[in-house]
Protein backbone atom coordinates (compact mmCIF):
# COMPACT_ATOMS: atom_id res chain seq x y z
CA UNK A 1 0.00 0.00 0.00
CA UNK A 2 1.27 3.28 -0.99
CA UNK A 3 1.32 5.99 1.59
CA UNK A 4 1.88 9.53 1.10
CA UNK A 5 2.05 12.27 3.58
CA UNK A 6 1.49 15.77 2.70
CA UNK A 7 2.22 18.65 4.81
CA UNK A 8 0.93 22.08 4.33
CA UNK A 9 2.64 24.85 6.02
CA UNK A 10 1.25 28.17 6.80
CA UNK A 11 2.93 30.98 8.45
CA UNK A 12 0.55 32.95 10.44
CA UNK A 13 1.66 36.51 10.78
CA UNK A 14 0.34 38.93 13.20
CA UNK A 15 -2.24 40.91 11.36
CA UNK A 16 -4.18 43.96 12.37
CA UNK A 17 -7.65 43.35 13.46
CA UNK A 18 -10.10 43.78 10.68
CA UNK A 19 -13.73 44.65 10.68
CA UNK A 20 -16.29 41.81 11.10
CA UNK A 21 -17.21 40.36 7.67
CA UNK A 22 -20.24 38.16 6.80
CA UNK A 23 -19.56 34.36 6.80
CA UNK A 24 -21.28 33.02 3.69
CA UNK A 25 -20.32 29.32 4.36
CA UNK A 26 -21.32 29.07 8.00
CA UNK A 27 -24.64 27.34 7.30
CA UNK A 28 -23.38 24.83 4.70
CA UNK A 29 -23.01 21.16 5.75
CA UNK A 30 -19.60 19.89 4.71
CA UNK A 31 -19.77 16.86 2.36
CA UNK A 32 -16.81 14.52 2.63
CA UNK A 33 -14.95 13.75 -0.60
CA UNK A 34 -14.67 9.95 -1.01
CA UNK A 35 -12.99 7.67 -3.52
CA UNK A 36 -12.40 3.95 -3.73
CA UNK A 37 -9.03 2.26 -4.21
CA UNK A 38 -9.28 -1.23 -5.71
CA UNK A 39 -7.38 -3.82 -3.71
CA UNK A 40 -4.65 -5.91 -5.27
CA UNK A 41 -3.43 -9.49 -4.55
CA UNK A 42 0.11 -10.08 -3.52
CA UNK A 43 2.55 -11.74 -5.90
CA UNK A 44 2.53 -14.93 -3.84
CA UNK A 45 -1.25 -15.10 -3.98
CA UNK A 46 -1.18 -14.64 -7.75
CA UNK A 47 1.35 -17.45 -8.10
CA UNK A 48 -0.80 -19.74 -5.98
CA UNK A 49 -3.90 -18.88 -7.96
CA UNK A 50 -2.15 -19.48 -11.28
CA UNK A 51 -0.72 -22.76 -10.00
CA UNK A 52 -4.09 -24.02 -8.81
CA UNK A 53 -5.87 -23.01 -12.00
CA UNK A 54 -3.08 -24.40 -14.16
CA UNK A 55 -3.07 -27.64 -12.21
CA UNK A 56 -6.83 -27.93 -12.67
CA UNK A 57 -6.51 -27.40 -16.41
CA UNK A 58 -3.63 -29.86 -16.67
CA UNK A 59 -5.44 -32.53 -14.67
CA UNK A 60 -8.62 -31.98 -16.67
CA UNK A 61 -6.75 -32.16 -19.96
CA UNK A 62 -4.92 -35.32 -19.01
CA UNK A 63 -8.14 -36.80 -17.70
CA UNK A 64 -9.84 -36.05 -20.99
CA UNK A 65 -6.95 -37.67 -22.88
CA UNK A 66 -7.19 -40.88 -20.85
CA UNK A 67 -10.98 -40.75 -21.08
CA UNK A 68 -10.85 -40.69 -24.87
CA UNK A 69 -8.18 -43.40 -24.97
CA UNK A 70 -10.17 -45.66 -22.67
CA UNK A 71 -13.28 -45.04 -24.77
CA UNK A 72 -11.43 -46.05 -27.93
CA UNK A 73 -10.19 -49.24 -26.27
CA UNK A 74 -13.66 -49.95 -24.91
CA UNK A 75 -15.04 -49.60 -28.43
CA UNK A 76 -12.26 -51.84 -29.70
CA UNK A 77 -12.48 -54.76 -27.28
CA UNK A 78 -15.78 -54.22 -25.48
CA UNK A 79 -18.78 -56.23 -26.61
CA UNK A 80 -22.41 -56.37 -25.69
CA UNK A 81 -24.00 -59.55 -24.47
CA UNK A 82 -26.14 -61.19 -27.12
CA UNK A 83 -23.98 -60.02 -29.98
CA UNK A 84 -22.66 -63.55 -30.53
CA UNK A 85 -19.04 -64.64 -30.52
CA UNK A 86 -16.78 -63.02 -33.04
CA UNK A 87 -13.17 -63.48 -32.02
CA UNK A 88 -11.02 -65.70 -29.86
CA UNK A 89 -10.07 -64.07 -26.58
CA UNK A 90 -6.31 -63.77 -26.75
CA UNK A 91 -3.68 -62.42 -24.33
CA UNK A 92 -3.30 -59.43 -26.69
CA UNK A 93 -6.99 -58.58 -26.35
CA UNK A 94 -6.74 -59.07 -22.60
CA UNK A 95 -3.79 -56.71 -22.48
CA UNK A 96 -5.81 -54.07 -24.35
CA UNK A 97 -8.71 -54.57 -21.97
CA UNK A 98 -6.47 -54.08 -18.95
CA UNK A 99 -4.93 -51.01 -20.55
CA UNK A 100 -8.42 -49.62 -21.11
CA UNK A 101 -9.34 -50.22 -17.48
CA UNK A 102 -6.14 -48.57 -16.36
CA UNK A 103 -6.80 -45.53 -18.57
CA UNK A 104 -10.37 -45.27 -17.32
CA UNK A 105 -9.11 -45.32 -13.74
CA UNK A 106 -6.53 -42.65 -14.53
CA UNK A 107 -9.24 -40.53 -16.16
CA UNK A 108 -11.41 -40.78 -13.05
CA UNK A 109 -8.55 -39.90 -10.71
CA UNK A 110 -7.48 -36.97 -12.88
CA UNK A 111 -11.05 -35.69 -13.21
CA UNK A 112 -11.38 -35.90 -9.45
CA UNK A 113 -8.09 -34.10 -8.96
CA UNK A 114 -9.02 -31.49 -11.55
CA UNK A 115 -12.39 -30.92 -9.90
CA UNK A 116 -10.77 -30.57 -6.50
CA UNK A 117 -8.31 -28.05 -7.92
CA UNK A 118 -11.13 -26.07 -9.56
CA UNK A 119 -12.90 -25.87 -6.24
CA UNK A 120 -9.65 -25.00 -4.46
CA UNK A 121 -8.98 -22.29 -7.03
CA UNK A 122 -12.42 -20.80 -6.52
CA UNK A 123 -12.12 -20.94 -2.74
CA UNK A 124 -8.65 -19.43 -2.79
CA UNK A 125 -9.81 -16.74 -5.22
CA UNK A 126 -12.59 -15.69 -2.89
CA UNK A 127 -10.50 -16.09 0.24
CA UNK A 128 -7.68 -13.91 -1.03
CA UNK A 129 -9.93 -11.36 -2.67
CA UNK A 130 -8.54 -7.99 -1.43
CA UNK A 131 -10.94 -5.43 0.05
CA UNK A 132 -11.33 -2.11 -1.71
CA UNK A 133 -10.33 0.88 0.40
CA UNK A 134 -12.64 3.89 0.64
CA UNK A 135 -11.00 7.15 1.56
CA UNK A 136 -13.12 10.11 2.54
CA UNK A 137 -11.78 13.61 2.98
CA UNK A 138 -13.69 15.99 5.09
CA UNK A 139 -15.30 13.50 7.37
CA UNK A 140 -14.70 13.56 11.08
CA UNK A 141 -12.76 10.36 10.81
CA UNK A 142 -10.41 11.83 8.33
CA UNK A 143 -9.45 15.08 9.93
CA UNK A 144 -5.80 15.84 9.40
CA UNK A 145 -3.40 15.88 12.27
CA UNK A 146 -2.72 19.52 12.92
CA UNK A 147 0.36 20.72 14.62
CA UNK A 148 1.22 24.26 15.63
CA UNK A 149 4.75 25.35 16.42
CA UNK A 150 5.48 28.92 17.57
CA UNK A 151 8.22 30.64 15.66
CA UNK A 152 9.71 34.02 15.85
CA UNK A 153 7.16 36.52 14.72
CA UNK A 154 4.30 34.01 14.50
CA UNK A 155 3.74 30.25 14.30
CA UNK A 156 4.06 27.32 11.92
CA UNK A 157 0.91 25.32 11.40
CA UNK A 158 1.21 21.85 9.85
CA UNK A 159 -1.38 19.26 8.76
CA UNK A 160 -0.76 15.69 7.68
CA UNK A 161 -2.96 13.27 5.71
CA UNK A 162 -2.46 9.79 4.50
CA UNK A 163 -4.18 8.26 1.45
Amino acid sequence: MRALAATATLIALAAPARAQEPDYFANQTPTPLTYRIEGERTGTQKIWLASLAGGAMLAGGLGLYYNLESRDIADEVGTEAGAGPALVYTPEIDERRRTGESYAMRARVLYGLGGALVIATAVYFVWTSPDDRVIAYGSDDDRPDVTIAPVRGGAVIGAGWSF
Partner: protein
Amino acid sequence: MRAAGAVVAALALAACEPEIGAGTYYCGEDGFCPPDLACNPDTFTCETPGSFGEFDCPSGSEADEPDDELASAPTLGALPCGYNPIPREGCVPDGDDVDLLQFEVAACTGANPRLDITLMFPVALVELELALVDDTGAIVRTGEPCTPEPNFTGRRWLCIEGAVPDGAYHLRITAGDDGDCDGACRYTHYLLFVRYPTA
Protein backbone atom coordinates in the same frame (compact mmCIF):
# COMPACT_ATOMS: atom_id res chain seq x y z
CA MET B 1 -19.90 -24.69 -7.06
CA ARG B 2 -22.59 -27.33 -7.37
CA ALA B 3 -22.52 -27.04 -11.14
CA ALA B 4 -18.77 -27.64 -11.14
CA GLY B 5 -19.27 -30.72 -8.99
CA ALA B 6 -21.90 -32.03 -11.37
CA VAL B 7 -19.58 -31.52 -14.33
CA VAL B 8 -16.80 -33.39 -12.54
CA ALA B 9 -19.16 -36.24 -11.67
CA ALA B 10 -20.43 -36.45 -15.24
CA LEU B 11 -16.91 -36.53 -16.63
CA ALA B 12 -15.90 -39.20 -14.13
CA LEU B 13 -18.81 -41.36 -15.19
CA ALA B 14 -17.92 -40.82 -18.83
CA ALA B 15 -14.62 -42.65 -18.43
CA CYS B 16 -15.18 -45.82 -20.41
CA GLU B 17 -14.08 -49.20 -19.18
CA PRO B 18 -14.25 -52.06 -21.67
CA GLU B 19 -17.33 -54.10 -20.90
CA ILE B 20 -17.32 -57.63 -22.29
CA GLY B 21 -20.64 -59.38 -22.44
CA ALA B 22 -21.12 -63.10 -21.90
CA GLY B 23 -20.94 -65.16 -25.06
CA THR B 24 -19.22 -62.50 -27.12
CA TYR B 25 -15.77 -64.09 -27.30
CA TYR B 26 -14.61 -67.57 -28.07
CA CYS B 27 -12.38 -68.93 -25.32
CA GLY B 28 -8.67 -68.56 -25.92
CA GLU B 29 -6.02 -71.18 -25.35
CA ASP B 30 -6.48 -73.23 -22.20
CA GLY B 31 -9.99 -71.79 -21.83
CA PHE B 32 -8.70 -68.24 -21.48
CA CYS B 33 -11.52 -65.74 -20.84
CA PRO B 34 -12.00 -62.20 -19.48
CA PRO B 35 -12.39 -61.75 -15.72
CA ASP B 36 -15.81 -62.73 -14.38
CA LEU B 37 -16.37 -65.07 -17.31
CA ALA B 38 -15.45 -68.73 -17.77
CA CYS B 39 -15.09 -71.04 -20.72
CA ASN B 40 -18.06 -73.16 -21.65
CA PRO B 41 -16.39 -76.27 -23.11
CA ASP B 42 -19.43 -77.22 -25.16
CA THR B 43 -19.80 -73.92 -26.99
CA PHE B 44 -16.15 -72.88 -26.32
CA THR B 45 -17.39 -69.36 -25.63
CA CYS B 46 -16.78 -67.21 -22.55
CA GLU B 47 -19.91 -67.34 -20.44
CA THR B 48 -21.12 -66.43 -16.99
CA PRO B 49 -19.81 -69.03 -14.52
CA GLY B 50 -22.51 -71.40 -13.38
CA SER B 51 -24.55 -71.01 -16.55
CA PHE B 52 -23.15 -74.19 -18.09
CA GLY B 53 -22.15 -77.68 -17.12
CA GLU B 54 -19.25 -80.06 -17.63
CA PHE B 55 -17.92 -81.01 -21.03
CA ASP B 56 -20.10 -83.40 -22.94
CA CYS B 57 -19.53 -84.84 -26.40
CA PRO B 58 -22.06 -83.45 -28.90
CA SER B 59 -24.98 -85.71 -29.63
CA GLY B 60 -24.06 -88.33 -32.25
CA SER B 61 -20.36 -87.49 -32.29
CA GLU B 62 -19.45 -90.82 -30.71
CA ALA B 63 -21.61 -92.89 -33.05
CA ASP B 64 -18.56 -94.39 -34.80
CA GLU B 65 -16.95 -95.71 -31.61
CA PRO B 66 -15.11 -97.94 -31.25
CA ASP B 67 -12.88 -96.52 -33.98
CA ASP B 68 -9.49 -96.69 -32.29
CA GLU B 69 -8.05 -99.45 -34.50
CA LEU B 70 -7.46 -99.59 -38.26
CA ALA B 71 -9.62 -102.67 -38.51
CA SER B 72 -12.56 -101.13 -36.70
CA ALA B 73 -12.46 -97.70 -38.35
CA PRO B 74 -15.63 -96.59 -40.11
CA THR B 75 -15.26 -96.08 -43.82
CA LEU B 76 -16.31 -93.47 -46.30
CA GLY B 77 -15.63 -95.90 -49.17
CA ALA B 78 -14.13 -94.62 -52.40
CA LEU B 79 -14.21 -90.87 -52.58
CA PRO B 80 -16.14 -89.78 -55.66
CA CYS B 81 -14.36 -87.27 -57.84
CA GLY B 82 -15.25 -83.75 -56.69
CA TYR B 83 -16.42 -85.17 -53.37
CA ASN B 84 -17.61 -82.36 -51.09
CA PRO B 85 -19.78 -83.77 -48.33
CA ILE B 86 -21.14 -82.26 -45.16
CA PRO B 87 -18.63 -82.25 -42.30
CA ARG B 88 -18.34 -85.17 -39.92
CA GLU B 89 -18.56 -84.41 -36.26
CA GLY B 90 -16.37 -86.27 -33.79
CA CYS B 91 -15.31 -86.17 -30.18
CA VAL B 92 -12.21 -86.92 -28.15
CA PRO B 93 -13.59 -87.24 -24.60
CA ASP B 94 -10.19 -87.99 -23.09
CA GLY B 95 -6.56 -87.80 -24.05
CA ASP B 96 -6.27 -91.51 -24.82
CA ASP B 97 -8.98 -91.62 -27.45
CA VAL B 98 -8.00 -92.25 -31.08
CA ASP B 99 -10.41 -91.69 -33.93
CA LEU B 100 -9.75 -93.33 -37.28
CA LEU B 101 -11.66 -92.94 -40.53
CA GLN B 102 -11.00 -95.03 -43.62
CA PHE B 103 -11.51 -94.03 -47.26
CA GLU B 104 -10.18 -94.91 -50.70
CA VAL B 105 -8.77 -92.65 -53.35
CA ALA B 106 -9.23 -93.53 -57.00
CA ALA B 107 -7.90 -91.78 -60.09
CA CYS B 108 -9.93 -88.78 -61.15
CA THR B 109 -9.73 -86.69 -64.26
CA GLY B 110 -9.42 -82.95 -63.86
CA ALA B 111 -6.91 -80.16 -63.75
CA ASN B 112 -5.85 -80.80 -60.16
CA PRO B 113 -7.38 -83.82 -58.44
CA ARG B 114 -6.26 -83.84 -54.82
CA LEU B 115 -7.23 -84.59 -51.28
CA ASP B 116 -8.40 -81.59 -49.31
CA ILE B 117 -8.89 -82.40 -45.63
CA THR B 118 -9.63 -79.90 -42.88
CA LEU B 119 -9.91 -80.65 -39.17
CA MET B 120 -11.38 -77.92 -36.96
CA PHE B 121 -11.42 -78.03 -33.16
CA PRO B 122 -11.87 -75.39 -30.43
CA VAL B 123 -8.87 -73.23 -29.58
CA ALA B 124 -9.92 -73.48 -25.95
CA LEU B 125 -9.52 -77.23 -25.57
CA VAL B 126 -6.77 -79.77 -26.10
CA GLU B 127 -4.98 -79.52 -29.41
CA LEU B 128 -5.55 -82.33 -31.87
CA GLU B 129 -3.13 -83.95 -34.26
CA LEU B 130 -4.18 -85.11 -37.69
CA ALA B 131 -2.35 -87.71 -39.76
CA LEU B 132 -3.01 -89.40 -43.06
CA VAL B 133 -1.83 -93.00 -42.74
CA ASP B 134 -1.76 -95.87 -45.18
CA ASP B 135 -3.11 -99.38 -44.71
CA THR B 136 -0.17 -100.34 -42.55
CA GLY B 137 -0.52 -97.34 -40.25
CA ALA B 138 2.50 -95.53 -41.66
CA ILE B 139 2.15 -91.78 -41.76
CA VAL B 140 1.79 -90.39 -45.29
CA ARG B 141 1.12 -86.79 -44.35
CA THR B 142 0.40 -84.77 -41.25
CA GLY B 143 -1.98 -81.90 -40.78
CA GLU B 144 -0.50 -78.46 -40.96
CA PRO B 145 -1.93 -75.39 -39.19
CA CYS B 146 -4.14 -73.43 -41.57
CA THR B 147 -6.27 -71.33 -39.22
CA PRO B 148 -7.42 -68.20 -41.03
CA GLU B 149 -6.63 -64.77 -39.63
CA PRO B 150 -8.65 -63.16 -38.23
CA ASN B 151 -10.23 -66.26 -36.83
CA PHE B 152 -13.99 -65.89 -36.58
CA THR B 153 -14.59 -69.59 -35.92
CA GLY B 154 -13.08 -70.03 -32.47
CA ARG B 155 -11.39 -73.15 -33.78
CA ARG B 156 -7.92 -74.16 -34.84
CA TRP B 157 -7.65 -75.58 -38.30
CA LEU B 158 -5.36 -78.35 -39.47
CA CYS B 159 -5.16 -79.07 -43.18
CA ILE B 160 -3.86 -81.79 -45.47
CA GLU B 161 -3.99 -80.90 -49.11
CA GLY B 162 -2.33 -82.55 -52.07
CA ALA B 163 -2.40 -85.35 -54.58
CA VAL B 164 -1.83 -88.88 -53.27
CA PRO B 165 -1.46 -92.16 -55.10
CA ASP B 166 -4.57 -94.25 -55.53
CA GLY B 167 -5.22 -96.52 -52.63
CA ALA B 168 -6.78 -96.92 -49.22
CA TYR B 169 -6.01 -94.44 -46.47
CA HIS B 170 -6.99 -93.62 -42.93
CA LEU B 171 -7.27 -90.32 -41.14
CA ARG B 172 -6.05 -90.56 -37.57
CA ILE B 173 -7.09 -87.97 -35.01
CA THR B 174 -5.46 -87.93 -31.59
CA ALA B 175 -5.00 -85.52 -28.73
CA GLY B 176 -1.69 -83.69 -28.61
CA ASP B 177 0.27 -82.49 -25.64
CA ASP B 178 -0.65 -78.79 -25.71
CA GLY B 179 -3.70 -76.73 -24.81
CA ASP B 180 -5.15 -79.11 -22.26
CA CYS B 181 -5.36 -76.59 -19.37
CA ASP B 182 -2.63 -78.55 -17.55
CA GLY B 183 -4.72 -81.66 -17.92
CA ALA B 184 -8.00 -80.07 -16.87
CA CYS B 185 -9.44 -79.80 -20.39
CA ARG B 186 -7.94 -82.81 -22.09
CA TYR B 187 -10.99 -83.32 -24.25
CA THR B 188 -12.50 -81.72 -27.31
CA HIS B 189 -14.86 -82.13 -30.20
CA TYR B 190 -14.15 -81.50 -33.82
CA LEU B 191 -15.43 -81.09 -37.35
CA LEU B 192 -13.78 -83.00 -40.16
CA PHE B 193 -14.08 -82.12 -43.84
CA VAL B 194 -12.88 -84.69 -46.35
CA ARG B 195 -13.04 -83.38 -49.90
CA TYR B 196 -11.70 -84.59 -53.16
CA PRO B 197 -11.76 -81.67 -55.57
CA THR B 198 -10.52 -82.12 -59.11
CA ALA B 199 -10.07 -78.50 -60.15
